[in-house]
């Protein structure tokens, strides 16, 4: 997956973000002040920056100006939701804007959107004998192509992008079927059963009591 630089001065929030990034397979670096950012970007290849606006030293907007020439996508994270701030952020070239408090799933979804838009997303996901090619929308089990319906593939992609995180049936409906899908949560169960059978993932896709489903992959 991608390498992400998390710039956040609040230790708890920085840890929260990085622990979740680690879960879904991203690698990360941490910076606690704006002035460190430029130096860290020089040292390692970075696919995405999660940038807090209120930072000691150099604030987020100043950091954006400083690193604009590197053309690394930036998602701003802030407690400020004033329109003027959002506009300023976008004008400086931010890809997206997330306001505290945010849900982790939302943050991960936005990270994926930005990564995909910038073609930094890893083209394939391999786990055990299963290989998923996102661009071609192909799935192979032990090098044998498996036929998935469009909806099953969407569901698989959602599970992989949010792996190690339990997703409720409602959340899965929302993410894989879309907000306006007027369906039953049992639809999810049916599709999950199909996926398990086709990929041989009876153990990997776990049913989490009272919560939903979780794709479990070694971190």
């Amino acid at each position, binding site marked *: 997956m991608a390498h992400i630089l998390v710039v956040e*001065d*609040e230790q*708890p*929030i920085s*840890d*929260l*973000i990085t*622990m*979740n990034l680690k*879960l879904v397979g991203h690698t990360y670096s941490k910076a606690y*002040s704006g002035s460190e950012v430029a130096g860290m970007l020089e040292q390692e290849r970075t696919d995405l920056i999660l940038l807090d606006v*209120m930072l*000691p*030293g150099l604030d987020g907007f100043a950091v954006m100006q400083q690193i604009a020439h590197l053309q690394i996508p930036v998602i701003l994270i802030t*407690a*400020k*939701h*004033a329109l003027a701030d959002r506009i300023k952020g976008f004008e400086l070239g931010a890809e997206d804007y997330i*306001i*505290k*408090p*945010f*849900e*982790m*799933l939302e943050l991960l979804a936005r990270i994926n959107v930005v990564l995909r838009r910038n073609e930094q997303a890893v083209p394939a996901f391999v786990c055990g004998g299963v290989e998923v090619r996102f661009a071609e929308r192909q799935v192979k089990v032990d090098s044998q192509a498996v036929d998935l319906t469009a909806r099953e593939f969407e569901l698989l992609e959602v599970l992989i992008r949010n792996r*190690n*995180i*339990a*997703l409720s049936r409602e959340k899965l409906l929302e993410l894989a079927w879309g907000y306006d899908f007027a369906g039953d949560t049992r639809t999810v169960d049916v599709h999950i059963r199909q996926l398990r059978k086709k990929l041989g993932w009876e153990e990997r896709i*776990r049913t*989490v009591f009272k*919560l939903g489903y*979780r794709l*479990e992959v070694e971190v």
Partner: protein
Amino acid sequence: MRFWHKNLLAVLILFIAALDISVIMVMKKSWQLNMDSETRRAASEQTLIANNIFENLDSIRARGNTLTPVLLASVAQSYGDYYRNQGIGLELRENGRLIYPNTGSGQADGSEGQSAQTIRLSMPLPAPYQAMELTYSRDISGLYAQQQELNRFFVMINWIAGPVLALLLYLLIRRLTKPLKQLSETTRTIAGGDYSNRIELRSRDEFGELAVHFNRMAAAVEQRMTELSDMAGEKQRMVDNLAHELRTPLTSMQGFAEFLTSANIGKEEQIKAGHYILSETVRLKNLAFKLLDLSILRHQPLELSEVEVSALFEAVRQTEELKLKESGIPLEIDSSIPAVRGDADLLASFLVNLIENAVHASRPGSPIRLLAYEQNGEAVLEVRDCGSGMTAEQSKRAFEPFYRADPARSRLYGNAGLGLSLCRQIAEAHQARVELESVPGQGTGIRLILQLPNNLASYSITSRD
């Protein structure tokens, strides 16, 4: 119609009317005087002629001659010829019958004499010739011509004076009403939002006075506006800060709770997440209680009593003992007054907050001084450090809620920037003043200026406030 238009028109009309009326009256009077003197002259001349004729007739009669009409006519003729050269016509009638002039030309003269431009007087000759009547007519066309000339001149003067007057009036009124224009323009810019604009007017008349008052008003408005916008700015910052203070722990709490419930994680990470939820909850709780304290202080009147300084300082020292020892900072206590008036718990809270700030600003080994002394009849409690100090801008905003002079906004010490805010509230509840004095790099001193106990003089002053 603009004010100066009205002014100009009114003054112009009034002036020309007044001028014309007075000139016309003067001319009329002069005409009358001329006529009177002309008439008087005519009358006296007539009397003279009548007397001369009378004497002639008398002497003719004395010589024994009878007065035939021919003789009478010749006598009249001798006078008539003489006076005709002076523009005076004479007629002599006897019992209404014209004796002289008896020629056609004489009649023509007579008819001319009938015109308006002659003075015509008739009188009988003195007795015994009263049957005879002498008519005297004097040509005054010269007088009329003179009057006409005057009239022409008057009209001409009117034509010239009117425009000249209008021009002068225009210049004068423009000049006089210029301050009005200036006032109006400045008012417009101020109404447009430029409160710093002032009227530059140095005259001493009513306009100058108005300008002075206006400027005073503008200054007051500007000051009020600045205050309002400052206040609005402070409120906005407070709301922003409060949002930040609330959102940050909430984000962590929500995130880690989500993480705990839904993520596929090991024991170690579970403990870490739980720990964060706990510490952020404590942080939120502290913030809520501080805000509550502030709110209570704002709404509850205070019972002031005598507070012993030594006990107060001892309580404060005990509270801060551990923190001071950890940071390696000595606390120097010096008190020269036995007691102050106030609320013991709040005063202790005030001093503890200041000492905590001072500890964060100080390097290990640099002392903090806790002082109590009298100054100008008032009690002063002071906390002074030799730490990093603050700039003027930082000092100005130091008492704002959530403001941290520390630009890093780091929460290393776990405070939310409400300490000095609380101190300000405590001072206000005591009706006391807080003074802050800070030099970057040299340290900060904060003084609370209170009443001395049983100090009736100072008590009455503050209670009058």
